[in-house]
């Protein structure tokens, strides 16, 4: 590096260091983003909280309430400090806890969704020893019942609850609908007359899509599982109830009551956002959203909104899903456990709980809070939500529930998008849940060995291979091989051994969270008989082919433009180059987030705004199966063009000047020059580029996770995302490994082709390196 570059780099790093260190330096208070309590306190408890329920909450009111509550706790407990993590997104939080449980790394205290309890039943500690009965009696009965085991131990402290309701605009919907038919009539009329969304709901692939609509199933008397935790939602009469719910959801689109964009709604904020943007007459939301509407809308706009019970098949039935988060204690050591229970009881003491619930907009679960704090008994919103809780129904605390939810999410997506009939979708979900249930019950009873000599084979092979390579003869050049040892060792252990271990794992039914497994071909069988796998192959092929062709074409066009402009001494080539490459240096996740923001489907999305202006929008850019795939490809091309551009630009610069001059003399047109001069000259670079961007696109999923999460249904789920989900949501290491082996084979084939091209092209790339 030149000295100028060096000093610029040093300055940058120095400036950049000041950012975090300025904040980290404030690390002396009682409450910091990573610690609560005195830094020198002897007892440290680790806490995995949820992001909306701690002092790090993004909403200032919640953060403020917790700062007060935690500060009081810290002052009265100088001997204890908390190490705080707030866990991201619902599913990830759960997965992280499961992995931690498997490895014995659980935090001392965690906040979990109530329906996860069965997953951690072996690790949660009973609380009643440090939690007096008279205080427990203050909690709403369902909270204690749901969290007690058969032996009568209380395993968690419910911190808040919520319920779902129909939010509607009084000016557009004078009488709130009580039945589905009324809802469809009203919503489609408003949509038609006002050119806005009549009725919105969560329809993307996430938990709330199922949970919000379970109320419509429960109100018909439907049950998901029986008393032993066996799934029964696919058996009559539950099947009929579920089919009616799916049929209703199909009708919301067919009757024009809801836009297809509901398939892209992955958080409640999108519902609030549409409401604030004036694009929703009704939506199925959660009680806490009343706060969001209140802060987001002017008082006169907010006054137009009201709530009603969720419309049902039959006007005389009512139900609403009550969720809620629960504090659990994992600390086994008595002293830590005592401190942990004391901490959660302190946070949930009546005065604190009241303060927090006021800030969050969730519903308290203590009777004394409703009694002693006027806001909860007098405020008309709280009072009416409190009334709805009477018909509240919690999700079953059964081990199979998460799988039921996963499958119903897919079913709802397929029905709403029109891909499948309710019957087809339900039958598929039912079959998948039963298969998983069979696996769960058999893996609990099967007898497997936990000592596995075969596990050592890949490691041995990985170590022997490089040794054999070097051993075959004496070193020609004394000691030279030793210089490669550290690099070889590192690559062997961290990259090469995993490739071999992948093969072994793919032949097991191992789970990531479990120690026991057996060798079987089941993973491959499951893969090859899984109809959705072929769908994913198709999605991947379209994604890769689309990305690669566009990246290459656009990258080439830009490289040509910049090269031609440079040869004509036009200004601005550097700016254009920096702009293109700036898209490429952005982390993939960030690119996904960025495009998600650009493509927001209600009127506040900038792309849809301009599409609307030119008369072809707004379009369901995330929620329509085809457009979502197009969006994902466009985002990937936006990011990836730079790579092609750089390689091809370097190639163009190496085209000898004399050839250009000869072309000038011949009077070549631009097209002739491209066809007869540039493309033949660049052929090797183009070929290499093609292979490399194919590999890169094939392995991409960091961009897709935040953008579509693989939805709607599975229409943007590429193979790599499928593999990640199998491994780190479903925790099925064996099945994930089988998918990974397929990916590995594709990668190795492409890498081999690229290797051939590079070796042939080596003198050229060497020259580029030196320039």
């Amino acid at each position, binding site marked *: 590096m030149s000295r100028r570059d060096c000093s610029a780099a040093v300055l940058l790093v120095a400036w950049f260091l000041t950012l*975090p260190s300025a904040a980290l330096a404030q690390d002396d208070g009682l409450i910091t983003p990573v610690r609560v309590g005195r830094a020198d306190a002897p007892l440290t408890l680790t806490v995995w909280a949820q992001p909306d329920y701690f002092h790090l909450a993004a909403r200032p009111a919640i953060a403020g309430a917790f700062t007060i509550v935690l500060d009081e706790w810290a002052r009265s407990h100088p001997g204890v400090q908390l190490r705080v*993590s707030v866990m991201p997104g619902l599913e990830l939080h759960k997965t992280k806890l499961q992995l931690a449980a498997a490895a014995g790394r659980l935090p001392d205290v965690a906040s979990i969704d109530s329906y996860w309890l069965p997953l951690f039943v072996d690790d949660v500690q009973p609380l009643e020893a440090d939690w007096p009965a008279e205080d427990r009696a203050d909690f709403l009965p369902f909270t204690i019942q749901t969290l007690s085991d058969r032996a009568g131990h209380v395993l968690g402290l419910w911190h808040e609850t919520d319920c779902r309701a129909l939010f509607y605009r009084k000016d557009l919907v004078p009488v709130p609908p009580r039945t589905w038919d009324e809802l469809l009539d009203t919503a489609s009329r408003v949509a038609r007359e006002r050119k806005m969304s009549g009725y919105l709901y969560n329809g993307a692939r996430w938990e709330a899509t199922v949970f919000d609509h379970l109320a419509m199933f429960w109100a018909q008397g439907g049950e998901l599982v029986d008393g032993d935790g066996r799934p029964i939602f696919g058996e009559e009469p539950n099947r009929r109830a579920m089919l009616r719910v799916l049929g209703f959801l199909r009708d919301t689109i067919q009757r024009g009551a809801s836009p297809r964009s509901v398939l892209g709604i992955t958080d409640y904020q999108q519902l609030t956002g549409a409401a604030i943007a*004036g694009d929703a007459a009704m939506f199925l939301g959660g009680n806490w959203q009343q706060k969001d509407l209140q802060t987001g809308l002017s008082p006169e706009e907010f006054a137009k909104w009201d709530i009603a019970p969720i419309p049902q098949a039959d006007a005389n039935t009512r139900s609403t899903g009550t969720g809620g988060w629960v504090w659990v204690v994992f600390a086994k050591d008595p002293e830590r456990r005592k401190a942990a229970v004391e901490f959660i009881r302190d946070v949930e003491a009546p005065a604190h709980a009241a303060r927090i619930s006021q800030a969050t907009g969730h519903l308290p679960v203590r009777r004394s809070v409703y009694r002693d704090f006027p806001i909860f008994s007098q405020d008309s919103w709280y009072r009416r939500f409190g009334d709805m809780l009477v018909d509240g129904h919690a999700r079953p605390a059964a081990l199979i529930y998460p799988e039921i939810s996963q499958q119903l999410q897919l079913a709802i997506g397929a029905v709403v998008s029109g891909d499948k009939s309710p019957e087809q979708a339900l039958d598929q979900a039912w079959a998948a849940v039963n298969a998983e249930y069979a696996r769960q019950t058999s893996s609990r009873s099967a007898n497997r060995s936990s000592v596995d000599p075969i596990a050592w084979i890949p490691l041995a092979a990985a170590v022997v291979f490089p040794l054999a390579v070097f051993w075959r003869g004496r070193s020609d050049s004394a000691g030279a091989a030793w210089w490669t040892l550290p690099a070889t060792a590192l690559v062997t252990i961290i990259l090469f051994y995993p490739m071999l271990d992948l093969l072994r794992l793919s032949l097991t039914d191992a789970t*990531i969270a479990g120690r026991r497994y057996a060798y079987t071909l089941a993973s491959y069988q499951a893969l090859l008989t899984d109809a959705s796998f072929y769908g994913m192959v198709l999605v991947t092929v379209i994604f890769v082919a689309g990305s690669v062709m566009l990246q290459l074409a656009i990258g080439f066009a830009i490289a040509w433009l910049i090269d031609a402009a440079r040869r004509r001494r036009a200004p601005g080539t550097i700016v254009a180059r920096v702009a293109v490459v700036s898209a490429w240096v952005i982390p993939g996740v960030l690119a996904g987030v960025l495009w998600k*923001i650009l493509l927001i489907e209600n009127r506040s999305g900038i792309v849809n705004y301009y599409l609307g202006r030119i008369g072809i929008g707004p379009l369901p850019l995330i929620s329509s199966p085809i457009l979502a795939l197009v969006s994902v490809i466009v985002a990937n091309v936006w990011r990836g063009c730079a790579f092609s551009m750089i390689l091809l630009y370097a190639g163009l610069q190496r085209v000898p000047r004399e050839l250009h001059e000869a072309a000038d003399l011949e009077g070549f047109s631009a097209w002739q020059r491209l066809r007869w001069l540039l493309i033949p000259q660049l052929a090797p670079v183009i070929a290499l580029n093609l292979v490399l961007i194919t590999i890169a696109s094939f392995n991409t999923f960091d961009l897709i996770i935040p953008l579509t999460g693989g939805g709607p249904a599975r229409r943007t789920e590429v193979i790599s995302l499928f593999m990640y989900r199998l491994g*780190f949501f479903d925790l099925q290491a064996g099945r994930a490994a089988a998918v990974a082996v397929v990916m590995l084979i594709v*990668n190795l084939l492409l890498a081999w082709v690229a290797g051939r091209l*590079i070796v042939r092209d080596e003198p050229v790339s060497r020259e580029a390196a030196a320039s």
Partner: protein
Amino acid sequence: MIAAPRQRLFFVLGLVAVAAGFLLPQIWLLSLSLKSKAGMFEYPPTWIPRAASAANYRFVLTQSQVPWYLWNSLVVAMFASAATLAVATPAAYVLSRERFRGRTPLLASLLVIQMVSPVILLVPIYGIIERLGLIDTRAGLILVYAAMQVPFTVWVLKNFFDAVPASIFEAARLDGATRARTFREIILPIIAPGLGATVVFNLAAYWSEFCLALVLLDSQARYTMPLGLFSFQSGYDTDWHLLAAASFIALVPVIAVFVVLQRYFVAGLTAGAVKG
């Protein structure tokens, strides 16, 4: 060749269009990061916020864990690139300059491994790091990152070593310098630009990496920036205005470093023919 002014204008307009096309998303991000939560949903949307404020930046830098994410990303990226360079440079040197048994298979294996994405290996890598007791530690992540970039770094540096004229090595040998001494005192200074290119390139790779960090880290206090940004999308509600501010903070250093050091990026890319 000096073109006619009208032709030049055509090219300038073309370049401006390209630059705008690729920069507009980032500019929209900047615009959002200066808006309030209510401003996010304004209709019609505005590029220049009516009431621009730095409140979102103040919030993410003082009341969130973003400073920790930045710090972690920095620590991980620095240590990982130092480790990568430390093991890759000697290997690249002998692979370029000496002939020994195993050289060709080693080079070929590195080339192939370089192109296999570590994403494919998530499950077994998690297994190894867990057995080493390094889950949820920066050390575990650094170890994997260091290994991940070794094949690429070896190849790029080998190309740079290849480009050093043989006469320099001859001269050193005639002076009786050992391999280590030639390497340290003569060759390293010559290939400094190559080292710069790979370091810049590797830093960018570590800064962006998401999948491995997602799987290997638990505690938020150890999250790297991409993971931290991802965790801004919370369970129920995403606060886009804050996410935009945090994203922009993550973006600035990469783009700044890139603008200053862009020719090293380009050199690194073209030299190694890397994964994208």
